[in-house]
């Protein structure tokens, strides 16, 4: 059976499962559509949260980001998991106790202010829409590579599948599909990693293999990796090369941003009790950790494998020859990926060899002059292909490659569905029922939620087909907004008695300052050339715009406290609301009277 048929089988089978779940889990009420009837087991919700959270970025990009930077990109590992501690301790149990359907609804009720709710809805929609673009382009890439269909067809197939289970099943359909998608994506991620860890270190657990011994050289794996990358003029893998301030602030921004992302928070509305919300956050992190503990091993091992493939006789001997790349089956992956335009090499000095090294390093420039090299000849290496190409690079069986194809699609589709659900509930519940047509019947609201979902899918598909130029910058934007606007206001709503004016002023200050800082560095509305500063030479104390979310959050807190202190304290019924959110008793009742 050829690779194409195998990929088709894996992807087809996984899609059949998702459709089957869609038919089984149709939503009949708004409670089922928004919160899966609040009947989801905490472990099940944990698994669905993991799939919801782990996007195309976690699955496809993160290992590549770590592989080519090393220690400094540990920020992604700590940031994207550490946020769950904040979520579990500071938000999830209390928001579940509150017992409504959307994040903005809590903000509106707690701060007795339609303005606060509206600002929250706007933040939520911007966060979710920017995020969903990345997922849709990820779907296109995975289809394009594995099923040999063009980007557009791939994207449309993906959109139809999401439509089937998200529009009809709502949160209920999405939850159970995400459970299936989690299983597919975690198998797809860990199985190749286990094979590779066994090949390189003899240890079946990648996270342990990372700190194990490289069997080929008999040296510790990380020491070997440090050695060969520094010999080629690259930064030492395990060393801290960037600046510490940005590493701390970037990690903190990712943590706060993670805890403030609405599509993740709303998953905790689906469990039956407050106690379950606490457990469920733990289970979510268990399922997330399976991938996040594996990713740094995947990154380091792939970097070692790739570097050694280009220097098969060691870094001080001759580089790999063009002839070997063309004839040796070990190098077949290079030709495959060259066709996608994401990998490219060129024999600049015409010696028939491909030298891969850091041509910006002075030591290497000296060696290049001595040996007649004319620059790094692996001149195009898109880091996003690392996870997808990894099984081919390690010569794993073809069914593993089929599994990776299904896994990449599962990661992108599950996150897209969660985001679309957050968008549609914001539109139908917060805007329609909350502001425009408060007397809408439950049936009417359910219908408008479905229409909003269908429109959101159409918009996301269109944006996926015509990605705006700033698509790559949107992660900074989504996390910056969630960190600077949503997280602080939720936390203050539970832990302090900040009033309506304080909340609105804080949210706006955090949001606008963060947006301003990002736009000053990345260009106004990401239009190239309109920026006044760059992240290489940032405006304030060397803080990069990607690390600014944490500062925005601090400003939000400070402004909210200052304004709240100088204006009228909260009324007594809101005081009672805060007290009731803080104790678990009565959570069932809160759900039932809705």
């Amino acid at each position, binding site marked *: 059976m050829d690779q194409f048929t195998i990929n088709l089988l894996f992807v087809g089978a996984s899609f059949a499962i998702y459709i089957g779940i869609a038919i089984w889990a149709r939503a009949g009420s708004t409670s089922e559509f928004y919160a899966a009837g609040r009947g989801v087991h905490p472990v099940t919700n944990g698994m669905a949260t993991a799939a919801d959270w782990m996007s195309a970025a976690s699955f496809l990009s993160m290992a590549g980001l770590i592989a080519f930077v090393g*220690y400094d990109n*540990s920020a992604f*590992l*700590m940031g994207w*998991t*550490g946020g*769950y*501690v904040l979520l*579990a*301790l*500071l938000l999830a*149990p209390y928001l579940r106790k509150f017992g409504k359907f959307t994040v903005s609804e809590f903000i509106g009720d707690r701060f007795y202010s339609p303005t606060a709710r509206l600002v929250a809805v706007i933040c939520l929609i911007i966060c979710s829409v920017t995020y969903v673009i990345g997922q849709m382009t990820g779907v296109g890439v995975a289809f394009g590579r594995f099923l040999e269909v063009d980007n557009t067809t791939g994207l449309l197939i993906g959109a139809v599948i999401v439509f089937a289970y998200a529009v009809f099943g709502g949160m209920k359909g999405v939850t159970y599909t995400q459970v299936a998608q989690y299983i597919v994506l975690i198998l797809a991620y860990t199985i190749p990693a286990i094979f590779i860890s066994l090949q390189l270190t003899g240890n079946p657990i990648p*996270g342990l293999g*990372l*700190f*194990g*011994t490289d069997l080929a050289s008999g*040296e*510790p*794996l*990380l*020491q*070997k*990796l*440090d050695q060969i990358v520094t010999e080629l003029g690259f930064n030492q893998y*395990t060393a*801290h090369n960037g600046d*510490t301030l940005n*590493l*701390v602030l970037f*990690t*903190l921004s990712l943590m706060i941003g993670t805890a403030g992302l609405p599509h993740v928070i709303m998953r905790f509305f689906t469990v039956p*009790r*407050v*106690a379950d919300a*606490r*457990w469920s*956050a*733990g289970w979510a*992190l*268990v399922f997330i*950790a399976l991938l*996040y*503990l594996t990713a*740094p091993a995947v990154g380091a091992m792939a970097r070692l494998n790739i570097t050694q493939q280009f220097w098969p006789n060691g870094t001080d001997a001759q580089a790999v020859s063009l002839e070997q790349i063309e004839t040796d089956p070990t190098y077949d992956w290079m030709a495959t990926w060259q066709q996608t335009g994401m990998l490219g090499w060129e024999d600049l000095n015409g010696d028939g060899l491909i030298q891969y090294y850091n041509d910006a390093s002075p030591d290497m420039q000296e060696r290049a002059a001595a040996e007649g090299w004319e620059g790094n000849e692996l001149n195009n290496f898109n880091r996003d292909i690392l996870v997808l190409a990894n099984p081919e690079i390690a010569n794993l069986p073809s069914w593993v490659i089929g599994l990776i194809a299904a896994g990449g699609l599962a990661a992108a589709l599950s996150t897209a569905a969660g985001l679309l659900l957050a968008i549609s509930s914001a539109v139908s519940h917060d805007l329609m029922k909350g502001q425009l047509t408060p007397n809408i019947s439950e049936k009417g609201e359910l219908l408008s939620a479905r229409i909003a979902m269908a429109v959101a899918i159409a918009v996301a598909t269109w944006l996926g087909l015509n990605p705006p130029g700033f698509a790559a910058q949107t992660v900074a934007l989504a996390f910056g907004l969630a960190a600077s606007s949503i997280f602080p206001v939720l936390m203050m709503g539970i*832990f302090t008695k900040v009033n309506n004016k304080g909340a609105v002023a804080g949210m706006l200050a955090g949001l606008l300052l963060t947006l301003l800082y990002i736009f000053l560095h990345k260009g106004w509305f990401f239009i190239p050339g309109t920026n006044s500063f760059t992240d290489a030479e940032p405006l304030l104390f060397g803080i990069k715009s990607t690390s600014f979310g944490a500062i925005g959050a601090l400003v939000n807190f400070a402004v909210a406290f200052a304004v709240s202190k100088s204006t009228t304290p909260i009324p007594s019924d809101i005081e009672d609301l805060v*007290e009731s959110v*803080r*104790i*678990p*008793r*009565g*959570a*069932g009742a809160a759900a039932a009277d809705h």
Partner: protein
Amino acid sequence: MSPETGRDSASDGKAYWAANVRIIKISLIIWALVSFGFGILLRPLISGIQVGGSDLGFWFAQQGSILVFLAIIFFYAWKMNKLDREFGVEEE
């Protein structure tokens, strides 16, 4: 509810919330210590401790902090669910 028991449950509620905030504070100190501390700022101080080809700080940044985060969340869930019952504020 008599005014007396009303006062009792109010002071109980305060004690419950104070206990919760104390547990959160301790948990967040550990959360920051393993990630921002051992993983980043204190890494040079503990770099003498070797862990398979690198040092303890690198291990905390790429593996250890995540494992401690897990332990914190499960500890918090267990501790709070117990505290709910002690103060009689658990769900029916």
